[in-house]
């Protein structure tokens, strides 16, 4: 058995193989005694480790152990705890993103009026405008004949 084949058996024992390869190795281990023996040995080593993890205790008293930690925490050279740093301009994003969304919506709503103001009058039965925003999509329906504007806002 070559090294790559042995590693495949190990990966199978560890559940690291994807489904088709997993079935292939299972069938191989089933019919090949050498492969089965290697899988058994690897399983024994794994279960011995998992069941028999050695336990160690700190060989100093709780007070002594803590006192060194406390000293290091209090040391002026030790950086003091800080809240996770927010990305730069996060505060700006917090206020400007909603404001931007509202402005875009307002623009969408005003588009027909602006167009009527600056474009030559064209009689249209209806029109749809889609918002390019990722988080909020909106579709505007305007009926000139009915004189109404309907806006669908879809927040994802």
């Amino acid at each position: 058995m070559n090294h790559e084949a042995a590693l495949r058996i190990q990966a199978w024992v560890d559940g690291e193989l994807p489904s088709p390869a997993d079935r292939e190795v299972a069938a191989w281990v089933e019919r090949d005694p050498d492969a089965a023996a290697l899988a058994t040995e690897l399983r024994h080593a794994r279960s011995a480790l998992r069941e028999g993890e050695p336990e160690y205790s700190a060989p100093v008293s709780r007070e002594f152990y803590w006192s060194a930690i406390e000293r290091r925490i209090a040391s002026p050279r030790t950086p003091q705890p800080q809240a996770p740093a927010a990305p730069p301009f996060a505060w700006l994003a917090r206020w400007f993103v909603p404001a931007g969304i509202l402005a875009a919506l307002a623009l969408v709503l005003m588009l027909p009026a602006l167009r009527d103001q600056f474009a030559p009058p064209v009689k249209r039965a209806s029109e749809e405008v889609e918002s390019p925003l990722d988080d909020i999509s909106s579709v505007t329906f305007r009926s000139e004949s009915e004189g109404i504007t309907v806006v669908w806002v879809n927040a994802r």
Partner: protein
Amino acid sequence: MSGRPSKPRQKRIEYPSAADEDLVRAAQGGDMVAFEELVGRHRDKVYARAFSMMRNEDEAIDLSQEAWVKGWQRLQQFQGEASFVTWMTRVVINLCLDALRKQKRLRTESIEHMDSESGGVERQMPPLIINPTEGLERQEVRQRIDQAMSQLSYAHRTVLILHEFEGLEYKEIAKRMECSIGTIMSRLFYARRRLAALLMDLKQERPT
């Protein structure tokens, strides 16, 4: 009835009986006594991981204490995705890996290096189908595992610790040890076969 507005009453913590989550929350708010209680509860576990990797008491004490200092500094980053002790264990593992890298102890040297990448002597050995720890008391299994682990190189011991004790996948171990998945698989294979052989030697020396 008094006319004075009542202050919101702050929940008082009974430190010895409080749950870890409550102590962590208090420590995140700056309560050093709560943090001390956490250290007292979990110091052995954190020390044990450091010792299992470094195999040296002084280094293990120093690195585990350093881990607690880092834990205090980064406590705000702990969001409770894993248990607090698991989080602290990962902190100490990273410190140990850094220390081993600095001391270049994670390199598998010369012949052992070539052996470990190719499967080595252990590759040629017939598989041991007898369970080398069968019938042993748990305490005896622990002693033998400890003895066998102490005879492995740092690189091989570390990969066993991360895979078997910490339950990390190949990919995660490769990331932490800064090497390829193929290298991790080879090291793990070598380490397991070597460990099996060492346990079998101990079984023959000290039969149950």
